[in-house]
């Protein structure tokens, strides 16, 4: 009888999506005549994977992994993550091949996707259109997750999410909640980031977030761009006046290296990026439009790409400085306001509407992901720091950036 082999990524069926972080996986064979020695390898055409050993926790990265499949069909656990520098474009362009130890031809190849947040200016047309299609569909759901995201960032979020150390963790949670909602429409989609210290002519085009022909002129969208159907309160279009040309960068914009330099080695210094570049990008790089006001900013799709870039800069800083929450004194900063302490749960997902929290809490608990159980329905500030599961593998939040390694 021929053995049949099954692999589950993230230890779950039908969740073939991994980032760069080591994800728990498992493999088994339908019982054969004896144990089966196999070698796992990366077999994708675009996306590539690496292996992080067997057992309860990830080990060092390798290009292949040898293991033995028991004859009784029991699972063998192993760890796998995308290879840094080789993300997927679509599901199936990455794969894991399983080859018997004596053979040269694989027994099978199991497709997956190395699903990574990317630079919006460098997306393929297909990636861009999948993202925009999912976003327009999400916006169209009356009272759905996009409306909740807008309501959440209106007036009541000011104290919960700004002018305090939880600015970055809160917005990380906010982005993840939107991304998970997009992935219920199209699981291949991630939030792209606007790398605002570099020209982004592909992003600021009629094929993407819109092209402008002069101050206060409406954004132009191609007839094949899903954003031509973007509407807020029923009115189509996006109001935005940038203070830079579509193929340029504002001279007011801070570079990423500057943010890191100013940020130093402790979070108490790094959190200064809320003022600059964050506030400046919202309100000085743009002279008018929804993005200049915190209550209306989420009406503009660009808002999410702006914050994704801030989150990426934080993620990169975390990697450089090894600040994943293992030492709150350096990974985070002291707080004086509720919602900003390291172990505080975060509004609105905690559902708390008693003073001093806001009087309403849009939406319900934090959205789930099929790929990870983290952070749970009531995330804490702390739960946002170990987003790759480096301190505790089960804490991995299920996203990665194309220019932030895991190892």
């Amino acid at each position, binding site marked *: 009888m021929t053995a049949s082999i099954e692999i589950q990524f993230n230890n779950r069926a039908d969740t073939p999506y991994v980032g760069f972080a080591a994800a728990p996986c498992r493999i088994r064979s339908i019982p054969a005549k004896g144990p089966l020695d196999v070698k796992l390898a990366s077999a994708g055409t675009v996306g590539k994977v690496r292996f992080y050993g067997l057992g309860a926790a990830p080990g060092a990265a390798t290009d292949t992994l040898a293991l033995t499949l028991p004859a009784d069909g029991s699972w063998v656990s192993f760890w796998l993550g995308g290879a*840094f*520098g080789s993300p997927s474009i679509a599901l199936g362009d990455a794969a894991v091949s399983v080859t018997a130890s004596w053979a040269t031809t694989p027994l099978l190849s199991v497709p997956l996707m190395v699903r990574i947040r990317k630079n919006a200016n460098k997306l393929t*047309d297909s990636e861009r*259109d999948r993202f925009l*299609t999912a976003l*327009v*569909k999400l916006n*169209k759901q009356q009272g759905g997750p996009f409306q909740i995201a807008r309501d959440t960032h209106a007036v009541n*979020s*000011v*104290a919960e*999410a*700004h*002018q305090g150390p939880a600015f970055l963790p809160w917005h990380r949670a906010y982005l993840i909640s939107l991304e998970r909602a997009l992935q219920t429409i199209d699981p291949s989609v991630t939030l792209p980031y606007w790398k605002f210290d570099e020209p982004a002519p592909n992003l600021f085009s009629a094929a993407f977030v819109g092209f402008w022909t002069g*101050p*206060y*002129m*409406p954004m132009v969208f*191609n*007839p*094949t*761009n*899903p954003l*031509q*159907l973007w*509407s807020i*309160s*029923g*009115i*189509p*279009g996006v*109001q935005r*006046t940038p203070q830079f040309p579509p193929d340029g960068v504002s001279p007011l914009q801070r*570079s990423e*290296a*500057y943010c*890191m*330099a*100013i940020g130093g080695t402790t979070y108490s210094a790094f959190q200064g990026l*809320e*003022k600059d570049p*964050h*506030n*400046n990008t*919202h*309100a*000085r790089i743009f*002279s*008018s*439009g*929804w993005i*200049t*006001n*915190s*209550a*209306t900013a989420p009406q503009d799709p660009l808002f999410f790409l702006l914050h994704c870039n801030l989150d990426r800069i934080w993620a*990169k800083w975390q990697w*450089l400085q090894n600040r994943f929450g293992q030492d709150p004194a350096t990974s985070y900063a002291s707080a004086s306001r509720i919602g900003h302490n390291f172990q505080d749960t975060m509004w609105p997902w905690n559902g708390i509407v008693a003073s001093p929290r806001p009087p309403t809490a849009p939406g319900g608990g934090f959205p789930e992901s099929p790929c990870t159980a983290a952070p749970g329905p009531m995330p804490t500030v702390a739960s946002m720091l170990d987003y790759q599961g480096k301190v505790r593998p089960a804490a991995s939040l299920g996203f990665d950036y194309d220019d932030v*390694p895991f*190892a």
Partner: protein
Amino acid sequence: MDSIEYRNQLEAAIEAARAAISIPPVATGDSDPASREAAIVALDHEAIKDDAQFGALLGQLTDPSEDASLRFTILGKIQSLGFGSVSFGARRPEWLAALRTMIADPDPQLRSAVLDCLSIQKDAQAQSILLNGLKDPAVAVVPPERALQLLANDIHTDAYLHARNIIDDAPSDAARLEAVRLLAADSESVPLLEELLLDQSELPEVRRLAIAALHSLDQATLHEHAHTILMSDDEHPDVISTSLMALVHNDAAPRDDLAPRVDELMDHSSAEIAGVAAQLSTRFSSAES
């Protein structure tokens, strides 16, 4: 590139940035524009908390004899300091009062930016002035297309009548487009939007906006018209594209009799049209399965 090499590269870039950081000049009372601008840029949240400092800033901002570029910098800086600011709430009344004095500012760029700031916050005084300008162009502070854009920030203003008048007798194409856009929030405008959509002598941009407007207002009506447009051999390519996209996102699946036409469009010479047609074709497959 391996992680170690990558890390070394990043750290070198950070070191270079650190070496290049220059401390902004402290304001010394110099009156040259560059020094004054640098002093504004260097302000931090203390400028909001301190009564005298904030008052002085507003004074400079609202003084039409001041350099317009400096005033623009002050406007942006205050907005930046106020963005997501817990402490700015206390300053909001005097901030809005200052902005209202600038609605008729002699500088058009400042005027437009100030009106934007007020309109986003649904300021009644700003709305009233914009509506008066649509009624009587002699008192308008911004062009009609800009007024309509700004009024669209609050669907409860009484701008719909003005928008319909502009569609009948538009001072410019830009004004007409913004009028169509605004009427997307007015359920009574469905018949007018249908008329615009079906009129092949209309600008394609107007017809595309009518599609977007009906997408918000009346999915079923749009479904029928998009179907008709796609079945026609004599339609503008941009209108075809937008109609295809509308059916991709419509609540209802496309009717089966459209399938052969969508197949034809998948072979269209425009790769973009072919691409959207391919997206729509998957809705037929879903409908069949």
